[in-house]
């Protein structure tokens, strides 16, 4: 799968409370959640995000609560994949499980700025920054995780495995 999109750039320790504040957790409807995604740190996100855009952050993205509402809100807002230096572990699982692709790139994330346009090849893990001309290589997903991603998420994977 290949994506091309504009970058929404965030910093370290973006927690699930800012991705989707708990005051909106009285629903699990993806479209309703998307209306409030990132609003506590970036009011322009919901109004400005376009389908196909890419979210990029520094270390420990998605730390905090186990709420799957966080990757669900990001995905429903139109973001095609999230790139970060590192991810918090529950967010990582949740994103893979619901079919929101993630790419971990370590310090190379510094080569990506807000508004850059990236071309991402999920299978090879290659990220071309078409704005700066630089190419970044993401850590490839472990084989078993790739199987979940290819199945379109955990539920399809479990359905497809032996009964």
């Amino acid at each position, binding site marked *: 799968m290949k994506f091309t999109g504009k970058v929404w750039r965030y910093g370290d320790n973006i927690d699930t409370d800012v991705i989707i504040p708990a005051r909106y957790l009285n629903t*699990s409807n993806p479209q309703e959640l998307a209306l409030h995604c990132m609003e506590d740190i970036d009011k322009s996100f919901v109004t400005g995000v376009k389908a196909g855009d890419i979210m990029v952050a520094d270390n420990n993205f998605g730390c905090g609560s186990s709420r799957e509402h966080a990757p669900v809100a990001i995905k429903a807002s139109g973001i095609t994949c999230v790139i970060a230096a590192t991810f918090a572990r529950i967010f990582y699982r949740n994103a893979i499980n619901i079919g929101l692709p993630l790419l971990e790139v370590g310090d190379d994330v510094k080569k990506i700025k807000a508004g850059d346009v990236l071309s991402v090849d999920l299978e090879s893990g290659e990220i071309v920054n078409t704005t700066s001309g630089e190419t970044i290589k993401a850590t490839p997903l472990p084989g078993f995780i790739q199987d979940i991603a290819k199945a379109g998420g955990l539920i399809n994977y479990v359905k497809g495995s032996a009964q």
Partner: protein
Amino acid sequence: MGMTMTEKILAAHAGCEKVEPGQLIRAKTDFLLANDITGPQAIPEFEKIGRPVFDPDKIALIPDHFVPNKDIKSAEQAKALREFARKHKITHYVEAGRMGIEHVLLPEMGWVRPGEVIIGADSHTCTYGAIGAFATGVGGTDLGAAMATGDTWFKVPSSIKVVLTGALPEWVCGKDVILSLIGKIGVDGARYQALEFTGPGVANLSMTDRFTISNMAIEAGAKNGIFPVDEKTVEYLKARTNHPYTVYTADADAVYEREIHIDLGKLSPVVALPHLPENVKPVAELPEIKIDQVVIGSCTNGRIDDLEQAAKIIAGRKIHPDVRAIIIPGTQEVYMEAMKQGYIAQFIAAGAIVSTPTCGPCLGGYMGILAAGERCVSTTNRNFRGRMGHVDSEVYLAGPAVAAASAILGRIAEPKEVLA
């Protein structure tokens, strides 16, 4: 080469002789948990698989986050959880009135035990590491899948050995231990890793302190935070379960990624300043910080010992006129015991609010939401921006003694300032 406690438990549940950090395994799950926020998300995922629940006796569905229902949408979520529990004859569904905050309730009821693999659709599921279980938080989809299969996948974490020595000084508690550790290693200092607490200091920690410490392992990014099983653990379990359990101990030659030493005797009361749990400072070093609200309770500090600490400071005194003090016993059993001990009457006489068990204010749900510019000292576990209400409000994390002292003086304070 030996194995850590975490590796041993995971190996046994994956049917392997040995596991190593980084290895991907499928492990059997002994107990599963979801609540009124995550359950309604797990249920449709479970239903897509089209199988029955793997074991209705091994699933707890606890409506604790927005229950008693805070609004119509929350009521619908609680209803979805209840109806699912009835339809699938889930043994451990607990209705409001008998309900408690899940991570206080499950150990109290004896539903979780040493050596087990427990996953919960709540990040603070790591609490049960206090009794020597491998327990970790997952999302709704993971939980929904495990409800059908009775297993889940893990990447075996490497372990950090946290060696505790000495004993806590008066008015210093488990919260000060875990906040001090997070202050040292940061909110991603144990990312993807297991925190294994060990050393002679463990014997000096109460079960309440251990629950608080394991509870906040996730705040250092850890997958789990585990304690060895000792006499105190066995004593705690004796009154709560007669279910057999397996005690795993780390091998002497187990391999740890790093070792951290903490002398409990050298710790002092601390707070985590906004907006990260790693912004830890001794209370003694803070300037005057006036506050508007105090919350004592939650899965982190809602146990009877926590309320006892608070009562020792609040009894016979008055909550500061500018402060709303909200005290939330973790379960009905804790509430009853606090009533028998006279704590509840002391709290109310002092001018505090006492609520039925709920997660409510901790995650900015209800029962104590903050306005712009307001400051709260809270015994909860997260002080992220906007966590307890307005994006411009501030949460200071502390143990129950510091929270109680702050409630009396109207500013962040040490217990000794009140008792002097």
